[in-house]
């Protein structure tokens, strides 16, 4: 029997909403503060701002996790999957002891490390050498161990000649290399990887996953949160599925991923929110009313569309105030969580001119449509996320994977080849021409 490495006992965590909100922008933070100063936010308002909270609200409190039971023997690589907001990151934070559970307790054997913390505690005024020692100590390495591995770390980071230079004079690449070198030489008994929080840098993600499998081979416990389901399937021997703060399934990655995907397969090609629905996704200025997918020339929303038909994603929203500028965007992902494309109604990204683009919208109900040409997708399932905000780079309303649809090949694009179409997220019909040149 293997030693238990992690033991989560009936762990629940609640946050007070409003206090723990993450404000992306200073103006938003100030507005929220000002609002909070003049009127105490009521439950309905909070629930409105956080559309996915459903039954997890309790007054001002929000249950991020509920009754989590989990036991992981040492040496296991476990993937955690679930929708955004299911509580994956909170669970990892509790395991790494940053956040204290509200109820229950957590046991961990040995040192916990996570690649989230790359560069945590680096101080710009300190030299490379001093930062290695400080950062190593913060990550939990004893000084003697840092001293022993110091040369290794420095040569891994390739900064030998800058050891006595303050880090503020480093190029950002050098600083990141040094930070990663320290983290990579930390040998935690439990490694935690939250890829969700390190989105953007592909190379870094690859490095993290590489480190994970390497540590796994050495018999250490690894916990992975990733939207990259293929990586979870390859890396892990076991996966757990989280849903609305609860751990709902535990088993082989294949089975868990299937279950996760079927959970994501919501509905009938349309999501509708009533006007008085407190849970309707909304910002101060805009409330989402519906998102629908139309295809095959049908007037009725469809969740299954033929490959040779134009697909229309229609987003209906209410503008709640006068003179609001609105930018609508959609993001489409495939089943592995890979982004297929991102599109918006700005003129340079639009085949025609959207008459309402850049205009001040008076109060009212609007519908924005995005037409995706026929013969573009592959035959698989796609997930649509809707993003709305005053500008392209300023999103105030975001609804991840709000609905999904399946594209079927009716044979229109498969007359000559019947084999499986491996991999690609799209299968556009393009122009081909061969000429004899000599």
């Amino acid at each position, binding site marked *: 029997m293997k030693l*238990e490495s992690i*033991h989560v*006992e009936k*762990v629940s965590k609640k*946050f*007070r909403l409003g*206090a*723990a909100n993450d404000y992306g922008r200073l103006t938003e933070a100030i507005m929220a503060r000002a609002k909070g100063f003049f009127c105490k936010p009521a439950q309905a308002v909070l629930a409105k701002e956080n559309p996915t909270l459903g039954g997890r609200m309790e007054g001002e409190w929000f249950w991020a996790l509920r009754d989590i039971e989990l036991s992981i023997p040492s040496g296991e690589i476990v993937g955690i999957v679930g929708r955004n907001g299911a509580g994956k990151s909170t669970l990892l*934070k509790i395991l*790494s*002891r*940053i*956040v*204290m*559970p*509200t*109820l*229950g*307790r*957590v*046991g*961990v*054997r040995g040192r*916990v490390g*996570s690649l*989230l*913390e790359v560069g*945590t*505690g680096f*101080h710009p*005024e*300190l030299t490379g050498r*001093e930062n290695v*020692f*400080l950062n190593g*100590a*913060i*990550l*939990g390495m*004893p*000084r003697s161990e840092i001293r022993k591995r110091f040369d290794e770390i420095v040569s891994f980071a390739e900064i030998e000649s800058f050891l006595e230079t*303050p880090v503020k004079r480093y190029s950002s690449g050098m600083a990141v290399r040094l930070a990663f070198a320290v983290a990579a030489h930390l040998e935690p008994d439990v490694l935690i990887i939250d890829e969700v929080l390190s989105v953007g840098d592909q190379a870094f993600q690859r490095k993290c996953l590489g480190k994970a499998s390497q540590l796994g081979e050495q018999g250490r416990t690894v916990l992975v949160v990733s939207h990259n389901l293929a990586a979870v399937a390859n890396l892990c021997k076991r996966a757990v599925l989280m849903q609305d703060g609860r751990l709902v399934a535990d088993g082989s990655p294949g089975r868990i991923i299937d279950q996760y995907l079927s959970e994501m397969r919501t509905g009938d090609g349309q999501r509708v929110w009533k006007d008085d629905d407190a849970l309707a996704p909304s910002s101060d200025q805009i409330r989402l009313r519906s998102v629908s997918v139309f295809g095959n020339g049908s007037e009725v929303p469809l969740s299954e569309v033929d490959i040779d038909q134009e697909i229309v994603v229609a987003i209906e929203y209410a503008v709640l105030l006068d003179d609001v500028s609105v930018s609508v965007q959609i993001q489409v992902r495939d089943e592995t969580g890979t982004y297929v494309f991102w599109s918006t109604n700005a003129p340079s990204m639009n085949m025609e001119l959207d008459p309402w683009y850049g205009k001040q919208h008076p109060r009212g109900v609007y519908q924005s449509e995005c037409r995706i040409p026929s013969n573009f997708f592959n035959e698989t399932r796609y997930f649509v996320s809707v993003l709305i905000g005053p500008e392209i780079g300023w999103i105030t309303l975001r609804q991840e994977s709000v609905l999904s649809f399946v594209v079927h090949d009716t044979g229109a694009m498969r007359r000559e080849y019947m084999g499986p179409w491996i991999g690609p997220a799209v299968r556009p019909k393009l122009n081909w021409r061969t000429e004899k040149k000599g």
Partner: protein
Amino acid sequence: MRYYGPTDSFGFGQLSEIWRTRELLYSFFLRDLLIRYRQVVVGVLWVLLQPLMGMFIFIGLFFVLGTQSARSGVADAPVVLTGVLCWQLVSSSFRDATGSLVNYRHVVTKIYFPRMLLPLASLMCAVFDFTIASTLLIPVCAITGTTIVWSTALLSIPIAIWLVLFCAGCISWLSALNAHYRDVGYALPFILQLGMFVSPVIYDLERIRPLLTDRWVWLYEANPVACCIGLFRWSLLGTAQPSILGMTVAAILTIGIGLSGLAWFQHADQQLADRI
């Protein structure tokens, strides 16, 4: 396997945790020490210059006012210097420790270590400065012809430790409070200003006593800072001792603030990452 979860215990567990992670405490201390005098021309000399400058300002002030700060018969300079040394220990540890958690929230919200280490490292820096700067007393006494009372001089060490323990209790309160309510950081400068006037920093106990009637002197001396400065000065220069009643109350206050600070810090620590 080590377990953790919400706890109602009194907070003594933090002490053993701090002891286990003392290497990290040392690293934080070293960091604070190193970055403080980076890009500074005279570097560590500031440790000596700050209390000296404070001393000269106050002596100059009293000179302009045409009076003396000391009533005890000892020269002004060593009396003011002992006060300034102790006060800078209090004020710089309060100032640095109060902001320590908030300034390091990008670390606090990403990785676990006993959070108490951050304010403690600030306190250690202040103690380090205090220890170095205390050597100034020897030349200052020599120049002003003041004799150091060697028979009680060693007692100054436990007295200084008392003051440090008092600071430790206060900064557990202040740093964790500031993480929850930033108001603390804004109010602190005024609290410190007030604190300096209600402690015998630039004057000695002999000077304040006639102003307060005998009935109220103990209340003044019950302020642990006032009591420690009085005792510190007494042990080195032979000035008046605080009253027994005052010292007793000050000791009780110190213990009370220390224990409640420990309990409060543990309580606040449990929601720190959510609230900071």
